[in-house]
């Protein structure tokens, strides 16, 4: 049973909540996770920046933050993913991508973090990016935004 709860900042309306949930769910399914309780939060830069300062002692703008609430060894995944819509839009412009695709990539990226994938080394980053691309290809991510 995968339970996803989405929170959208009311100033950022326009995100297709249901599709976002589907992307998250199928990523988990592809990673063979069957039990999960996840909060997906679309927020503003301000909130993510504050979280970053509080929990990682780093003061810079970030596009996605993921917190695993229980242990990585537990079979049930409990966690929270924070995504900054403003970062997503900026990134999309920078890489000349569609915003919806960028958002979908951020959802997958956050989900993978919850599953203990890391991106601190080049090698780890490569593995994550490959997975993201693979999963992205499988989804209909049209019109998330």
């Amino acid at each position, binding site marked *: 049973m995968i339970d996803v*709860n989405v929170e959208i900042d009311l100033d950022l309306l326009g995100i297709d*909540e*249901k599709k976002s949930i589907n992307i998250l769910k199928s990523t988990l399914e592809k990673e063979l996770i069957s039990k999960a309780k996840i909060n997906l939060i679309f927020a503003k830069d301000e909130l993510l920046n504050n979280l970053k300062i509080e929990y990682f002692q780093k003061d810079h703008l970030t596009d996605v933050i993921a917190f695993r609430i229980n242990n990585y060894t537990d079979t049930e995944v409990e966690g929270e993913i924070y995504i900054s819509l403003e970062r997503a839009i900026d990134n999309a412009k920078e890489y000349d991508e569609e915003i919806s695709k960028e958002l979908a990539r951020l959802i997958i990226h956050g989900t993978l973090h919850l599953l203990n994938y890391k991106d601190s080394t080049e090698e780890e980053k490569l593995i994550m990016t490959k997975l993201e691309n693979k999963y992205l290809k499988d989804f209909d991510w049209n019109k998330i935004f």
Partner: protein
Amino acid sequence: MIRKNNSQSLVERIRIFLSNNYKQISILISLTIILSLFFQRGRSLQYSYNIDDIAREPIIAPYNFPILKTKVKLEEDLNNTLKAEPFIFNRKQEIVDKQSSNLSSFFLFSNDIRLVNKDLLNSRNLVYDYRYTDKFLEAKSIASSDSASLSQKVIEFYKLYSFAKDKEDWNKFLMPVSQGGPQYSLKEFQKDILQICRNRWAIGILDINESIIVSNQLTVDNGDIPILYSLSELDDLNEAWTEAKKEITSIYNDENDIRRELGYDLIVEFMIPNLIYDKQTTERRQNASLDRVPRSKGIVLKDEMIVDANQRINEEDLQKLQSLAVEISKENRTLGLKDTFITYMGRLLIIGILISYFFTFLSIFRSHIFEKWQMLLVIAIIYVFIIIIANLFVYQLDFSEFLIPITVAAMLLTILFDARIGFMGTTSIVLLVGIMIGNNLEFIVTGLFMSSIAIYTVRRIRTRSKFITAIFSLIGASIIIVLSHGLFIGHNFSTMGADLGYLIVNSIFSPIITYGLIIILEVSFGITTDLSLVELLDFNHPLLKRLQQEANGTFNHSVVVGNLAEACSDAINARSLLCRVGAYYHDLGKMERPEYYIENQFMGDNKHDSLTPAMSAKIIRKHVIDGLKLANDYGLPNIVSDFIPMHHGTSRVEYFYRMALEAVKDTDEKVDDSAYRYPGPKPNTKETGILMICEAVEAAVRSIKNPDILKIEAMVDKVIKGRLEDGQLDECPLTLDDLRKIKGTVDGNSGMIPVLRGIYHIRIEYPENDTSSDNT
């Protein structure tokens, strides 16, 4: 045991009451104390009668006291005293001597100039005669020196006698006889003028105008014995001049005689007053004799009867009574501490009784007003305002009591609160003022009648023109009340006319003052009257304009709800204007995200399709908070912005709640009810309750396909029942009877069903069976 319990609970109850209402209680206590300061008379009230009143009891002098003169009499006496005290003048012989010598030196000087003129003429002739001889130069220098000495003398002359300057006649006067100078004897002329002046001086010329002399007689001090003259015996300067002119005319009887003009000029110049006013001594004597004028005209002895019971009071009795009242108030001032305290306590008690009459009504029947100390303060201010004006008019300025603007209080209370508060409040104020100005029953009756007319005219005020109506109704009421009092008591027509005049002035100004005060009180105490609510109805109000442009569907919904709500509140006598205004502004918050609300979705896909029910509900619920924020930004009165959260109360966003239930139907999960509920609070007035029902009905009825009157009625019932069962109407004072009236009947014309019938153009048609109802 039981008794003890009871008394404990009573003490406890009082303690709770005090701690909840300490602000109100302190306002009332300060009100009583402030009012008592303007109640000047205490015991003297029992002697307050008017002429032709009948004494209620025999009045016997408690001690010796003087009978005061009436104001008119006293003034007359003082005036007579002033007339009897002669003004004092001193005769100054030295002025006469000095002016006589001045006159002769004038003639000497003029003669001198005449001689020099003659010399100059001679020397000029010589210059002409010697023009071919060797004496020419000598003659010329003599002539020029003569000319120089002449011009110097002339300048000096005109400096001394400026009255003669630039006058043709006087220029001629200075010429020698051969050059057109005076053809008459100058000696005679001088003698005549001097004689005329001396004649006047002998009688005496006053140095102040006769018109400012108030006394009949004058004292003139000649240096030895003062002599009394009557005013007509002496002249002031103007009279002296007139007399002198007469004499000149009689001496020089030829009309063209130049000496008439010249002589009068000389008299004006040289004949100055010789009787000098001694202001200091005169005033000292006047004051001394004014002080000696008695203020009283007799004495009433102790135990003397002033007037018997049931006896008509005449002018003399009245004067005695008023003197007694003055004596008593003097006596009061010199009373001991204990007696002062006792009379003051009496004053406090009587005021306390009169205001408690109204404030008890307020605390029992209008507790929502009593609980707000600011509202109590407004009422207290109105009391103090009227009492101060009454004190000012009647005691300080001695105006008629009919000028006291009692109706201002009546209209203020009615417009700011409601008609019943207006009536109760005015009654207590009128009684208070009536007692203050001396148990004046005529004033009390007049005040009550005028106030009730005022209350009636402004009870449902929506436009400023009502104030004009109020002016005319009050004038009409004045005529009736003056006439009825006049006929009943038997006033003469001049008294009635005067009273009517005062009342009409009062009737014209009271509504105007009220209008001004309402603006001030509204702003300073945050009260919203119907007069300012009307302004919010304007579709050009920036908020309504924005709502119309940004969320047209919501705007139309608001207007329809406004119609419904107004009809409903009319049906139960609630504030219908407030209801309509509340309806117009209740959904302001939808302006922020209009496309998320069904009434604004005209095309395209439903934004909620891509959202989970929880998220959708969150967005929908947000319109309450957004609306409050907008209302605050645009400064809507609280009484209006209250409609924004209250029109949903704590009800559920039903549609999305059902969807959420649907989504978890097959699982064992539960939907969190509170996430789908509005934040509240629940409606707490009749008006907000009505709006809650109307807005739900409007939305529900719109969703009916092929509406007919029965479907609509059923839907209204369902909505009202739903709200009731959900407990949303628990906190509002609507009764079940009110709800029945709000709903209205299918064939009636009050309540909401007739309005809905109008909106959907439904004929009343009772389907006989199911098939026919399908066809409609």
